[in-house]
């Protein structure tokens, strides 16, 4: 049994390319996602169609461009250039000032601005429009400082758990989850399918090892690798990305190991139903990767999905693990808050192991 595990270790470590990927990948991905990917809006290109060209429209334009949300993508002269600008794809919004803007404000106290947003990206369009509007409002407040209203309700807003609204807080838990899922589920499923495909599984099956020992032996190296990987990712996110760990580190590690076991049992299950590596891979790919990214609350909040999908997302293990990580790292929750999610993971482990035992055939077809 022990020798078998050693053999598996040799197998894995001899393959230096896979090793580089296994350890390089978490580092590269955490850094990339930590620094490059954000849902914040920054430097969106806008075009200005200024029919007035006076001091006020210049002031507003400057105010827009110095806000950090926008950069100038071009000046337009005519209305019919708008469609062309949008079709090229870089310009996200066009701001149109009407003729004699400043004059009208001074004389009639009224002038109009038109904002056209490229809503082929609805989220972006909505956010940009909101930013533009609030910058305009600011400008007017400056312009008419002395105008005061009675009965003002002032609202104080507070952002809990993430006062600076960093998107790293969303991405790191998701990244940890994806990577662990990949390493555990995909690697085990493929390495077992590989023995089947190459025919070496039969050699193992006729050996005095019990099927259960074969599986355990196959899995242990990956457990260790995944643990090392999890630690690397957590260290990186703590020291480089500044993710806090509000709760207990011990609980975090325990839950991570639980999730690793979950992914492994899932990998074993996939391998028992697939004949070749290619199938194991496509299954892990299609069945795991996109749903893990999309249905787990990694990027898109689950509450916004159609109800049917909210139910489907309940069988995604990643959903529960992301809740657990966020709870421990950002909210400082303890097990009394997370027992439900933990139980679900345990349940999933039991489910996958039972299904695999049922499917596992000692005699290959």
């Amino acid at each position, binding site marked *: 049994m022990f020798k078998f595990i050693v053999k598996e270790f040799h197998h894995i470590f001899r393959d230096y*390319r896979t090793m580089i990927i296994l350890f390089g990948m978490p580092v590269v991905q955490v850094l990339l996602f930590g620094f490059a990917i954000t849902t914040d809006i920054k430097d969106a290109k806008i075009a200005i169609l200024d029919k007035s060209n006076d001091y006020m429209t210049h002031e507003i334009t400057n105010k827009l461009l110095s806000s950090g949300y926008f950069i100038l993508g071009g000046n337009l002269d005519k209305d019919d250039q708008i469609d062309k600008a949008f*079709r*090229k*794809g870089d310009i996200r919004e066009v701001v149109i000032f009407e003729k004699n803007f400043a004059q009208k404000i001074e004389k009639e106290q009224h002038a109009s601005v*038109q904002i056209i947003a490229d809503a082929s990206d609805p989220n972006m369009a909505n956010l940009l429009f909101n930013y533009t509007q609030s910058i305009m409002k600011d400008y007017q407040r400056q312009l008419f400082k002395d105008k005061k209203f009675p009965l003002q309700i002032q609202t104080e807003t*507070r952002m809990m758990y993430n006062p600076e609204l960093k998107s790293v807080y969303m991405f790191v838990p998701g990244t940890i989850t994806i990577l662990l899922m990949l390493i555990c589920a995909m690697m085990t499923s493929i390495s077992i399918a590989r023995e089947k495909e190459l025919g070496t599984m039969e050699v193992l099956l006729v050996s005095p090892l019990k099927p259960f020992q074969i599986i355990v032996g196959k899995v242990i190296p990956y457990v260790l690798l995944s643990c090392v990987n999890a630690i690397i990712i957590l260290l990186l996110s703590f020291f480089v990305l500044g993710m806090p760990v509000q709760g207990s580190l011990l609980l975090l590690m325990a839950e991570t190991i639980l999730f690793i076991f979950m992914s492994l049992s899932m990998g074993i299950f996939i391998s028992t139903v697939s004949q070749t590596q290619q199938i194991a891979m496509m299954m892990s790919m299609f069945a795991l990767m996109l749903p893990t990214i999309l*249905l787990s609350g990694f990027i898109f909040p689950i509450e916004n999905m159609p109800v049917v999908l909210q139910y489907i997302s309940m069988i995604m293990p990643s959903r529960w693990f992301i809740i657990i990580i966020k709870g421990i790292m950002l909210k400082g929750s303890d097990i009394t808050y997370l027992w439900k999610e933990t139980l679900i993971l345990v349940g999933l482990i039991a489910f996958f192991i039972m299904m695999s035992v049922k499917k596992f055939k000692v005699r290959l077809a």
Partner: protein
Amino acid sequence: MRTILYIIQKEFRQLKRNRQMLPIIFVMPMVQLLVLSFAATFEIKNTNLYIVDNDHSQLSRELTAQFRGSHFYTITGYTEDYKTAAKALELRKASQILIIPDHFERDLNKEDKAKVQVVTDAINGSAAALTSAYALSIIRDFNVNLLVDTYPAINLKDPVDVRYSFWYNPKLDYTTFMVPGILVLLITIIGLFLSGMNVVREKEIGTIEQINVTPIHKYEFIAGKLIPFWLIALFELAFGLTLAKLVFNIPMVGSIELIFGVAAVYLIAIMGLGLFISTLADTQQQSMFLSWFFMVIFILMSGLFTPIDSMPEWAKTINIINPIHYFIPVMRNVMLKGSQFSDISKHFWALACYGIISISLAVWRYRKTS
């Protein structure tokens, strides 16, 4: 030419024989398109609100009613104790808390101003910014109504009248934005993985030796390997576009020929990349890992889910080698805005270069001798 045809025939036969693989290739992507396009939305439809009312006044009840009346909010709890509400926030029973302090009504009437507090669970920063802004706007509306009721003569009109229009997608429908992108993703997965894995599989099983001893030229072999998957991916694109039209009702403003033209080039680039990756690997496991590694990075940096504009300069530079980020804007711009070839030519030529480079690399790396 005839040799290529034979290889293609062989590939199709092998594929047809593979009972497990067929549904994965054809059914899974479509199911995913249908399911995931609905999942990928930033549109906030519902926010669970917990109310802490310490005032118990007419006014505080009216303010609460304003929130209750908004279809955007579901009120999940009502308390006088902030701690209860904070616990609900931690347990994710609520994602926002509205706190109305005592003497709210009295302060407003006596001192002409009063405070309320809105606490938002901000782990998802961008969603928090939106829900917080939404709460602010409800309170502001409430404030304006109050003012108008008390002082009917007051002039609250802003001097600058901001008008807006949302072009190409006036209802801000999120699936319109996501479906073209997810479609790209699915054909990419098919193209990248099938082509890459296929050659390595022959290597691993040993059948490649048999091909190597035949007089087949390198380019014939590679063409024969690529064309079947190229056809399959294009077929899936056609099928996916039909679904987009029939199920999601996505407008098709631009020309379909243009989309297929660019897609044909794009797929060559992607498959060349897959093939190149597979020449670097000895086993399917390695090839899959490499492809997976690039795939995840490419997807997340492609602008499919998050804006490219917001990325730092160095990340935009890395994106030069990301084929997906060229094709997604083409799909979106042509489908939704009716962009013409002249509008997207930059992306097209980039993909063409990409294809030439990746295929050449693959041919160069592929050795008939071991």
